[in-house]
């Protein structure tokens, strides 16, 4: 159990900087998920915590102790790799116990601890097998066992579920969560899968282009995205974005074809903004309903539990999620209705969130 303090950490390869001054505090026992698209620097950040990657600038401290120059083995971290990275020539037991062997733990104690870990992960009957003879999920569990046996201060996960099929991924996800509840060790989990991120995280760190865009609980990140990037990256289907301009009496959307009556607070007339609405927050109403935007249905996607309806709003693509079974046919006209409280506003220039339009935004209780 340990806290991690990351201060202004940078990473550059030759001339290219990939991580630009990241600051992050991870509390002891917390499960933090770093979410971002590929190439956003999330794995690099994780590998810097692990000690597999040199830190170009800034400091990383584990339990208050700066670890910048320490070897991976001295940092007390254990890592689960994306491709499991099991030693192919060793049996499951040897794989799990290798770090103890390196550390010179006596054979008897080693066997005992391997047994204990195998029991937690339900690997007892597989201890003599080679990784070749295991299924993906079993390999994944061995990789976790290898991390667990060292009783590390910090668990690091580098997209460990991305090689599993969808069903197994859901299962392993809940196993990781249960395991964390049981061991309550500080964990950092890197993924590009937002469902994984939302379900696992105590706190979510959204990264983009080597910078942290937002840190918060999954609910916070979903309901109050700090930037346009976070708004469109978290949530599926992605949040609808409409370009707009501040006018004297509110907002004009889509090049002036639609209007929105909201108070413009301090924003100067003529400034460009983007308005976001979650597809889940839109209601389909009859075309011509007062206060609704009229649009044409393009495509309907059946999801079983619900339907995604893609509509055309004066040339802009817009999606609506509805749980109603009866839905308009492609080509028909519909009205889109939403409450002002569900609107998100972002600056078109900086992409950052603008809260000037409303005094308060309701945040769901956690």
């Amino acid at each position, binding site marked *: 159990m340990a806290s991690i303090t990351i201060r202004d950490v940078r990473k550059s390869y030759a001339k290219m900087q990939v991580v630009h001054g990241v600051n992050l505090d991870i509390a002891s026992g917390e499960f933090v998920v770093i979410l971002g698209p590929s190439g956003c620097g999330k794995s690099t950040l994780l590998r810097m915590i*692990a*000690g*597999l990657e040199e830190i170009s600038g800034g400091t990383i401290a584990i339990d208050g102790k700066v670890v910048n120059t320490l*070897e*991976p*083995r001295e940092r007390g*971290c*254990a*890592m689960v*790799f*994306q*491709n499991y*990275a*099991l*030693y*192919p*020539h060793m049996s499951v037991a040897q794989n799990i116990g*290798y*770090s103890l062997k*390196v*550390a010179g733990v006596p054979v008897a104690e080693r066997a005992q601890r391997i047994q204990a870990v195998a029991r937690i992960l339900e690997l007892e009957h597989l201890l003599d097998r080679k990784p*070749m003879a295991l299924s993906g999920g079993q390999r994944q569990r061995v990789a976790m066992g*290898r991390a667990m046996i*060292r009783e590390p201060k910090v668990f690091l996960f580098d997209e460990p579920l991305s090689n599993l099929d969808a069903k197994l991924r859901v299962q392993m996800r809940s196993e990781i969560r249960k395991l964390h509840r049981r061991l309550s060790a500080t964990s950092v989990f890197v993924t590009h899968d937002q469902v994984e991120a939302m379900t696992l995280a105590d706190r979510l760190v959204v990264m983009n282009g080597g910078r942290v865009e937002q840190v918060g609980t999954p609910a916070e990140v979903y309901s109050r995205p700090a930037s346009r990037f976070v708004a469109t990256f978290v949530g599926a289907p992605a949040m609808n974005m409409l370009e707009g301009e501040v006018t004297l009496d509110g907002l004009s959307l889509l090049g002036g074809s639609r209007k929105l009556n909201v108070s413009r607070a301090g924003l100067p007339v003529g400034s460009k903004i983007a308005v976001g609405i979650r597809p889940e927050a839109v209601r389909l109403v009859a075309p011509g309903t007062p206060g609704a935007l009229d649009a044409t249905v393009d495509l309907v996607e059946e999801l079983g539990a619900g339907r995604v309806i893609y509509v055309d709003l004066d040339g802009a693509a817009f999606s609506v999620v509805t749980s109603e079974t009866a839905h308009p046919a492609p080509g028909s006209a519909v009205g889109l209705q939403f409450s002002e409280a569900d609107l998100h506003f972002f600056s078109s220039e900086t992409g950052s969130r603008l809260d000037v339009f409303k005094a308060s935004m309701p945040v769901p209780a956690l």
Partner: protein
Amino acid sequence: MVERTPILNFFTHLILFVGFVFCVAPFVIVAIAASHSLKEVNDVPMSLLPGSEFWVNIKTAWTTADLGPKLFNSFVMAAGVAAGKVIISALTAFSIVYFRYPGRMLIFWLIFVTLMLPLEVRIVPTYAVVANVMSPYQAILDVTGLSWLIEKVSGVQVSLSLGLLNSYTGLIMPLIATATGTFLYRQFFLTVPDELTEAARMDGAGALRFFIDILLPLSRNNMAALGTIMFLWAWNQYLWPLLITTDASHATAVTELKQLIPNVGGIPEWNIAMAGTLIVMLPPLVVVVAMQRWFVRGLIATEK
């Protein structure tokens, strides 16, 4: 191409059979000749039916050429060279693939260049060095004038000398350096996933620990392949052992075979010569048969 028709099957087997005959015929003739008496082996044409003198000829060849100790010498040399090559090439490749240091690429290319300098090309300097391992150092002392200085100051004449002629070390050492083996290992190490290296680092294994615990077991097949090839290559060496073993006690079986080959005008004892050849051929054959399973695996595919 996977296609199966009776005619195609017939032709492929025919080609296989012709190839087989070409490969095996010389051995069969050697074995038959080794079983004939002196008179039968010199008949024209020689009878292709086995004679009855096989064991007699083997025994004669064994004693005439003193093959017991010679085979032992050959074995020591071939095993030494094979082991040395495997160890040195694994270590070299490990250094080249897993460490970043200045001059790494230069060293890599220097090793590459030695591919173009087989022993035969550099045999004179190599001989000179083996005859006196210290000669390069002596040359440095002489050229810099240090030996002159030492002689003037202390009155001692500097003459460094350490000869390796007629020794196993001399037989083995110059043959150990190998670019081929280094390449084989390098290619193999490059296929080992980086994550494995990182997992070992996370597990606390240092460089040497990783090499011994992870890389070496993973490269067993490569080791067997390289070891087998190099054993055969070293066993068949003729020029080098001939050159540096002036004393029969360190001669190898291959060089001693010539003792059995009849001189011009001598008794044409080809049956004895063939029997000796058979004996000398046997150990490499045993090695190939014993190692072929790993040998083939090591050369054709990376382990899955």
